């Protein structure tokens, strides 16, 4: 994407998320203040009245996610945003949204946890996002941007994906991406017309009634519904995987990282090449569906992987499941608001690489 300079604006990732939603035709936003995502709610409070939209500062994150439920059921494009503690409060609502097959976008600007934690960048909500933090067998499409421009692009796409599959979509960012300013351009067309949704609640004027529900008390019905959901999820897994692969061809080691950690890993690649190491990067853009086929393919020629996360190692489990023990998977992470430095990662790579070389003649499986 090359663009002319005068269309660029310097914005925080949070502001870009909010503005991109408006460009995508979102006219309903419900939020509750929590750091480090306050620029989203502030931007929405300013912008929604300008575009004839609705902004409500809800009495709680719980109320916000349920207002979202209402507007999604009514057929509108709708968004909420929060961070760790607030996203936890929204989990019941997210389960209902998934169970009622309601399209909507939820932004999580991750902060350190558990508990109140701190307001520093973190990626420790990975499990909660991709494995389903709420109850029941459901999935959310989870998109992980790594720049302010990509936040704008993915938020815009998120609304289309949500509508396409009638499913909640989460944007999984972090405090650093949310607070960071970078040039951004809203080059996709601002949506003013959106096709009506036949299933939505509008008043049953001249048609059979529509019911939005996730309650199936008659024996067997709920399982049937679950099977249908799972079929939809398989379709999403087949169709919507996104990732970026850089320099993996002759790599001694491939880093796997998303979001902020992917950018730091990219810097590591450059530094490492200067001292003679060939390092590749696989950056998942969709965390669910996870790019497991790409990793499986890579594992046939790559000798080792290292996952870098701002967590105790959550995505590392999905990487291991993808490559099924074909080669070792190492991990380097920081927790509780720590951001890994390039030197820390390089030192870890240097510790790992000689072992790989030594193990060339030996079977080495580590899961």
């Amino acid at each position, binding site marked *: 994407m090359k663009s002319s*300079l005068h269309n*660029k604006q*310097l914005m925080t990732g949070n502001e870009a998320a909010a503005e991109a939603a408006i460009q995508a035709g979102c006219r309903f936003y419900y939020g509750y203040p929590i750091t480090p995502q306050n620029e989203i709610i502030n931007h929405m409070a300013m912008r929604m009245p300008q575009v004839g939209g609705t902004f409500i500062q809800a009495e709680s994150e719980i109320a916000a996610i349920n207002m979202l439920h209402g507007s999604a059921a009514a057929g509108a494009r709708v968004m909420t945003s929060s961070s760790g503690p607030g996203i936890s409060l929204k989990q019941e609502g997210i389960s209902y949204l998934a169970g009622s097959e309601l399209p909507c976008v939820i932004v999580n600007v991750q902060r350190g946890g558990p508990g109140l934690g*701190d*307001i*520093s*960048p973190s990626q420790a909500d990975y499990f909660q996002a991709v494995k389903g933090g709420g109850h029941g067998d459901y999935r959310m499409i989870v998109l992980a941007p790594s720049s302010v421009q990509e936040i704008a692009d993915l938020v815009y796409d998120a609304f289309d994906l949500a509508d396409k599959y009638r499913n909640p979509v989460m944007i999984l960012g972090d*405090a*650093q991406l949310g*607070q*960071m*300013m*970078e*040039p951004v351009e809203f080059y996709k067309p601002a949506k003013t017309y959106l096709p009506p949704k036949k299933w939505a609640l509008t008043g049953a004027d001249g048609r059979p009634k529509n019911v939005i529900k996730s309650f199936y008390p008659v024996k067997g019905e709920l399982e049937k519904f679950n099977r249908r959901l799972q079929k939809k999820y398989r379709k999403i897994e087949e169709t919507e995987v996104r990732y970026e692969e850089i320099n993996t061809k002759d790599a001694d080691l491939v880093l796997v990282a998303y979001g902020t950690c992917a*950018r*730091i890993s*990219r*810097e590591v690649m*450059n530094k490492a090449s200067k001292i003679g190491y060939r390092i590749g990067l696989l950056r998942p853009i969709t965390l669910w569906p996870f790019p497991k086929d790409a990793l499986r393919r890579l594992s046939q020629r790559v000798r080792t992987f290292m996952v870098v996360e701002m967590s105790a190692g959550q995505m590392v489990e999905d990487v291991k499941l993808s490559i099924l023990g074909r080669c070792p998977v190492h991990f380097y992470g920081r927790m509780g*608001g720590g*951001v890994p*430095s*390039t*030197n820390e990662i390089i030192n870890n790579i240097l510790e790992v690489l000689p072992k790989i070389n030594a193990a060339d003649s030996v079977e080495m499986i580590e899961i």
Partner: protein
Amino acid sequence: MTEKIMLVGYGGQGMMLFGRLLAQAAMLDGKYVTFFPSYGTEVRGGSACYHLIVSTGEIYSPVVEEADTLIAMNQPSYIKLKDFMKPDSLLLLNSSMVNVEDPPQVKVYRIPATEIANELGNVVASNMVMMGAYNYIKEIIPTHLFLNCLENALRGKKAALYEINKLALERGENYVRNGNLISLPAE
């Protein structure tokens, strides 16, 4: 060209505005730029620290691990952040509020930014004094682009502040131009 800058000071010394305007001007100059507030433990206790990278190429990590330039507005922040400098770093100290010995191997400029801003009648403009000095030394961006951004930022009720900020910028520039320097790195 890649320039990694750390801006540190007390909250309220205008480092946020300094960084944002510089980032905006660099963007208008066609450069890649990242700018964000640091959350690290090094900034706890009243210090504000911002990471700013300006580059002619794509910027990967936005985190400044080694600063090409450190601009320090007060002593406690300087002491907390000085280890982010490397041997050839540029150090700009607000000498009105920082009184330390020269660190080894870095090029130090001491600019009495708070005093200069005070003389101009607005202590808050000390950030612009530093910006003037910094850009004179490094020539990161064309000054007129920075002034455009400054003017845009100071609209409405704040419009009256534009002239004094512009003046502060010039004073900072002149201060360095007139050779009010400098300690070169000790060999």
